[in-house]
């Protein structure tokens, strides 16, 4: 079983190298990427079942005795993140093939996409802080390439600020690693968790803040989010979908992991995170309201929902963390679905400006249905999974008597409904006035490739399935939260296991 752990990193990387060799044969590349991502998914589901059934699995890379080598560990949180991310990566790959844009134009797409997949998996699996940095870099470098693959002027402009911001975050990460290593003499997360309480509380608090800064940039937390809605929409539909679904959530995962595992309760930044969460929610949703570009609107909306996840974590109660975990899973699937459908809208109507498109409910009823389901879910209407997630978070907030944040989250929820209604009434109702758009919708070219619709439908179906399985998933999230809030088991599993 332990041999399975490194597979989600190794298989995509091997696939990436095969894709580089087969650069001239696109069909080989496609077979390789699809089989690598399918393999990832199977491994992730196997690990998920096993971890939930019995105990977390740990492996020491290279067989070095702990804590000398790199620890790879899969607990409940990592397992569920792995499953969801591998599902999304596979679905988006199929969509990208159907889209016939970047994927068929550039030989670099397939290998780089697989490196991104490896980086995302590695971030979830690793139990070593420095290795987390390497995993982040793998993922980010791949994302730089994917973002600027088309080489259009707007992509180059957005790519510049995205790369520079990410680089600065990485530099902060290295700095944080340096000071943490100087203070504790280890970068193994479990060992850090043991040694952190021995430090003076001020020092531990400083480290906690430094890591929040680093991961806050990647996750798009309040004062550090400005790069996100600027850069994400410039990539092509499939790439934006995978960025929106996964990259920020890797940052959220890192915040949850480091805050719950590494820091003793008095060094956790509950209040600060609550304030940041509230501001993130408000600023994100207000930003979304002002936009005219569909994908840009949805990008601002990601920021707003990152706030909900951080809000759940910041309570540091069982219900709060469980709500946050549930919300992360829900948001990855629903947001990917929305972005995939936004890609369909753009393809069908030839534009993603809200002020120009219109009337899609008649010209493309399938797309309208595909949009409506995840939109209702993200707006938090019962009985969709967004409602379950928000309800869990709000009731956790009421239990902790943080009335202000509860009020803010309810208000933002209302504004989210307004954002979705605005998209709906502009894109799907009314009539397009622009003759160019009318001509485009009437033309043959605007037919959406079947593969795109099919893969978007699968993701939308998954988001609806979340509603059906919300009960079991929430129970799982509660078990995860119990694990996270009692990190002793994680520490013992990592440090106590004797590697061969």
């Amino acid at each position, binding site marked *: 079983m332990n041999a399975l752990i490194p597979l989600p990193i190794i298989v995509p990387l091997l696939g990436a190298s095969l894709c580089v060799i087969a650069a001239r044969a696109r069909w080989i590349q496609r077979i390789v990427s699809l089989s690598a991502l399918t393999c990832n998914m199977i491994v992730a589901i196997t690990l998920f079942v096993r971890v939930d059934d019995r105990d977390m699995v740990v492996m020491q890379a290279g067989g070095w005795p702990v804590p000398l080598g790199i620890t790879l560990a899969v607990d409940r949180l990592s397992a569920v993140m792995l499953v969801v991310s591998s599902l999304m990566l596979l679905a988006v790959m199929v969509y990208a093939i159907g889209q016939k844009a970047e994927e068929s134009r550039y030989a670099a797409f397939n290998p780089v996409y697989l490196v991104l997949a490896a980086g995302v998996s590695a971030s979830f699996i690793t139990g070593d802080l*420095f290795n987390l940095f390497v995993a982040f870099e793998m993922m980010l470098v791949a994302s730089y390439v994917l973002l600027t693959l088309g080489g259009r002027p707007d992509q180059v402009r957005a790519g510049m600020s995205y790369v520079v911001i990410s680089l600065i975050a990485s530099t902060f990460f290295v700095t944080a690693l340096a000071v943490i290593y100087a203070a504790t003499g280890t970068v193994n997360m479990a060992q850090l968790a043991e040694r952190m309480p021995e430090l003076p509380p001020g020092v531990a608090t400083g480290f906690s803040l430094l890591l929040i800064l680093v991961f806050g940039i990647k996750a798009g937390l309040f004062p550090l989010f400005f790069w996100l809605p600027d850069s994400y929409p410039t990539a092509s539909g499939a790439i934006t979908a995978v960025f929106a679904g996964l990259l920020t959530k890797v940052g959220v995962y890192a915040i949850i992991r480091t805050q719950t595992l590494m820091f003793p309760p008095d060094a956790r930044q509950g209040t600060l995170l609550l304030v940041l969460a509230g501001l993130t929610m408000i600023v994100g949703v207000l930003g979304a309201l002002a936009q005219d570009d569909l994908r840009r609107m949805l990008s601002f909306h990601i920021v707003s929902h990152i706030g909900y996840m951080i809000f759940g974590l910041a309570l540091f109660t069982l219900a709060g963390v469980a709500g946050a975990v549930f919300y992360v899973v829900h948001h990855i699937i629903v947001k990917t679905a929305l972005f995939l459908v936004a890609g369909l809208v753009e393809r069908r109507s030839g534009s993603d400006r809200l002020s120009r498109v219109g009337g899609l409910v008649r010209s493309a009823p399938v797309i309208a249905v595909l949009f409506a389901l995840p939109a209702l879910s993200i707006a938090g209407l019962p009985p969709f999974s967004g409602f379950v997630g928000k309800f869990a978070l709000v009731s956790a907030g009421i239990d902790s008597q943080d009335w202000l944040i509860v009020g803010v989250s309810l208000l933002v929820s209302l504004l989210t409904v307004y954002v979705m209604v605005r998209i709906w009434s502009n894109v799907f109702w009314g009539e397009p006035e622009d003759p160019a758009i009318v001509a485009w919708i009437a033309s043959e070219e605007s037919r959406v490739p079947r593969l795109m619709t099919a893969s978007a439908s699968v993701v939308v179906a998954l988001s609806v399935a979340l509603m059906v399985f919300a009960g079991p998933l929430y129970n799982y999230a509660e078990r995860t939260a119990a694990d996270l809030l009692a990190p002793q088991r994680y520490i013992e599993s990592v440090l106590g296991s004797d590697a061969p």
Partner: protein
Amino acid sequence: MSVLLAFAAAFLFATGTWMLLQRRLSRILIGVGLVGHGSNILLLMSGGDGGVSPIIDTADPSEFADPLPQALVLTSIVITFGVTAFLLALGFRSWRITHDDVVEDDVEDRFIARRHETDQAIAEEELAERDQAVEEGRR
């Protein structure tokens, strides 16, 4: 020795931050390099004082230098190197497009910021048109 390195790291951070705040990509690139080196020096120092090469059976283990930060810093240098090369390529592409490497404003953001003004202008125009229609009706 360590104090000197600490000052070097601080100096690199300070100059690098200044360069990062510039508008030209070539300067930002130098800034990224400087800050990156600053953090690498910090990482190298985190292993404590130097010592003899950590090769087993050549010396007493208590005199060894800590090998881990050296391994970490090497990884970090390689990553910075790769990303810097990518940024250079991006800068070159930008130069091909605009013959400049100034990081430009976000067009869409400017558009949204101006929209409020245009909305008002359009509203005033419509108001004027209506007034005119009313005038004509009277005549």
